[in-house]
């Protein structure tokens, strides 16, 4: 997140680059505020739970769309509503600066050397 650090302290597990934003509050509608805040907290908790399965670093590599899809599905099931990819990325933006994350090393492992396509590899599950 650009915009410098707030007075808020950094939370555990949160990147130095992305302090959490404080939820909006209104002095004249405290009940709404608390309900809203609870929803926010629930959302953030579910997101962090999702990130345990889908590490943010994978959003930088070749699997990024599938990982994002996984996050969307997880949030949808947990919170019973649709999430667009942009919404998920915006949520993540509160915690991480994705641009500075380096892609996972393992990705380099899969497609790290050229391999000529061979019929025998292509059809290894062919029925006789």
């Amino acid at each position, binding site marked *: 997140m650009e915009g410098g650090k707030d007075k808020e302290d950094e939370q555990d597990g949160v990147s130095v680059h992305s302090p959490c934003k404080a939820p909006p509050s209104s002095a004249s509608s405290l009940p709404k505020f608390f309900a809203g805040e609870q929803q926010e907290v629930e959302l953030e908790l579910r997101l962090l739970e999702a990130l345990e*399965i*889908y590490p943010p670093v*994978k959003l930088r590599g070749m*699997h990024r769309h599938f*990982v994002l*899809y996984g996050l969307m599905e997880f949030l949808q099931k947990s919170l019973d509503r649709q999430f*667009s990819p942009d919404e998920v990325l915006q949520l993540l933006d509160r915690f991480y600066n994705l641009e500075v994350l380096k892609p996972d090393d393992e990705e380099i492992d899969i497609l790290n050397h050229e391999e000529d*396509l061979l019929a*025998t590899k292509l059809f*290894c599950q062919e029925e006789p």
Partner: protein
Amino acid sequence: MGSSNTALSDDDSATVTKTDSDSDSATETDEEICNRYDTCLFREDEKVLAYHSRFIYLAKVLKCEKRSNGWHYFVHYLGWKKNWDEWVGVDRLMKFTEENLQKQEAINKKLKEERKGEFRTSKRGTSLVSMRHPKGSRGKKRNSDSICKDKQTVPSDSSEKLVNIRIPLTLKKHLINDCEFITHLGKLFILPRTPSVEDILKMYLDYRYKKDNIMASSCNAVREIFKGICAYFNKALPVILLYKSERKQYRCIITEDLRPSMVYGAEHLLRLFVKLPELLMRADIEQKTLLELQKNLVDFLKFLQKNQNALFRSIYHVEDVETSTSKPDI
């Protein structure tokens, strides 16, 4: 299709070698036993199934070495850290075939049931190691340094980790025909192909909006999946989806501004689907979500099959590798 215990040949033959696992036969002759030890049965980079601690894992042969007690193979267990890589003898390995995959599933399932009481299940419904990395994740070795090396852990089946994407027979025939024309007859597809991979994916998304009768904005999940397919295609094409004789053409045509998905068509996209399970394994998607994903991918293949006349070349109008002239072939 011949059955052979010899190493797979390099000749890009279109015939499939389905290898029987002779080591399972109760009636192995002395000669067969000799052959098994004295012949290099697996080649470098070959995908295999490997026994370890009674379970069967998906692995890849990295090196082969002839020793006094038979050929040995240095294998890497796919999805596991490199520190598990090891030298194994032929008795630990099986060919990566449908039959052996089924055997793997059966054996691993049986062993898991035997150990059922000892392990708790993970979020993904697969058995976990008893010591977990604090971050949780899948509890695989790659995430935990604290797991003891004697593999008391219960792995997921390689076949469970792999999403099952069955390519319809009529589409497989395209793969076979391409192989014949390209590797045996020295032909190439004329590029750019129309429709391109990007065109095809867009056609499919339009078809889905109409079929599912939903707003485009609600199709986010499907759109994201096929953006993923496109990303895989662009990354994988030059690395693992080209026959040797297609490489020069690739180098000539692809530039920084021209992605493979803008240039290549259904024929090459189909090759990706053969490799897709292995690629998706690395994405580490939750089992339930993987099943949803699988449905979408299978539906896409049905779409390709239904529209194959429009999407695939039925008459091979291809370039000659040697002469680079366009010649229609029937």
